[in-house]
């Protein structure tokens, strides 16, 4: 999605450093310190994880840490809320995965 570079009421952001990171192995760029969820949205990525059981795509919902919908994996950090986790140079990020479901035994076609 489009970034707002000069907000008509709030003005510009103070100078931010560009950083490189990867999502599902694909190289991407964003700003240091912005939430991972914002960097991914700016890159046009809406699906942050597959539902653990159904495998359905899920994205951000509340964007302030309440709902846990935006959880994904960051190498070295484990599963994090992408809306509250600041982006760092070289981060290797991957979407949350559907899990094998031996416990419920439920299978989807």
């Amino acid at each position, binding site marked *: 999605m489009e970034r707002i570079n000069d907000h008509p009421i709030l003005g510009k952001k103070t100078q931010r450093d560009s950083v490189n990171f990867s999502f599902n192995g694909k190289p991407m760029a964003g700003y240091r310190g*912005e939430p991972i969820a914002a960097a991914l949205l700016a890159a046009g990525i809406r*699906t942050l994880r597959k539902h653990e059981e159904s495998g359905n795509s*899920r*994205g951000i919902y*509340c*964007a302030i*840490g309440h709902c846990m919908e935006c959880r994904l994996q960051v190498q070295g950090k484990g599963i994090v809320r992408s809306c*509250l986790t600041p982006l760092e140079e070289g981060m290797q990020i991957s979407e949350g995965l559907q899990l094998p479901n031996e416990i419920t035994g439920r299978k989807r076609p």
Partner: protein
Amino acid sequence: MSRQSQNSDLMIVGAGPAGLSAAIVASGNGLKVTVIDEFLEPGGRMLGQFHEEHGRWWVGKRIAEQLIETCGKQGVSIRCGLSVYGLLKSDGLWEVSTSEGRLSAPRVLLATGAAEVPVPADGWTLPGVMSIGAAQVMSNVHYVKPGNRGLIIGMNVLGMAIARELSVSGVSLAGIVLPPAGTFAGSSALPKECLRLLMGLSHLAPSPVLRLGGRVAGALGMAGLVSKFFPRRGIKLWDIPLMLRTAAIRINGTDRVESVTLADVNGAGEILPGSEREVPVDFVALAGGLYPLAELAAVAGCPFLYTPELGGHLPFHSERMQTPVEGLFVAGNITGVESALVAMAQGRLAGASISHEAGAYGVDGERHVADAVEEVHRVRSSALIQFHPDIPEVRKKIYQLWQATYQAGG
């Protein structure tokens, strides 16, 4: 893990308008204050809020910057990116469990704010469907548009205020529609009920609807008299169609939002046959309103009251922002949903109340607290955005109940 020694006189959870305002008063009176917030930067929801007021823009971010600067000058420690998940009283000290270890203080102020009421709808788990607050944060705090064109589901003060912000930020909106009728939506799916609530606010002069957009108030007033003649295409609120006779039936898409199916409804919220149509959008913002974010008060053992006018379940508290739990205070939207200006006044009051209890004012304490109570009343009666018309009345009842419960017979 070993017990840490007392590291503050006051621990505040939440670096929004209430928490920062309380920190300024308490630190100004010599208390050592730590403010914790889960978000990446302090300021709370003020960071993304702005509205027009007498032809000028009220910008929450500027006010937040001033509060943060004053906190810095007065030695307040603000720690962001920390989540608080536990609160336990032990030997007269609160143990505050955070994602970065345990902290402790004799007094804790909960200024955690509010959370959004979910609006379940068919297709609402699709990526691209978000709470309206999420759209606000992405656009106004992180400077990323939530999408190319969106639709807002739910008609209330919060939704209308953020719709205006999004529009000003250059986000294209197809309209504001009613939620699908059913158990979850209740009366919020009824055109007349929405109109009643929006118009109910207008007995306050000048009305918030008027403040949200002058010429719209007149149109809404007309609609109130003859709501069945409300135009099918809606009326324009700024450049956004407010569609009071249209409901979202379904959100469509495979791996992301592609469209929303809309339909016209009658006064009872029932779908008019043959009126269904699809509107292409790539994001949907759900506006369900706010409720006090109060889990930590429950964890700390505070009793609750149910007050729908203030957003639902809230911790029982006095007019001085005390709770029945010793050393536990509350301020801001955790005590009921109101505007940022009221939250700031409540924060200053909590700061005065805590300073008084800590003996920081000497003999003048009662006067300082009484002045701060008066200021909250003054700010509330002149607040620019009123979330519910009955707030002053229900507040009075809560404080009377407190008196009857905790102060009867001295």
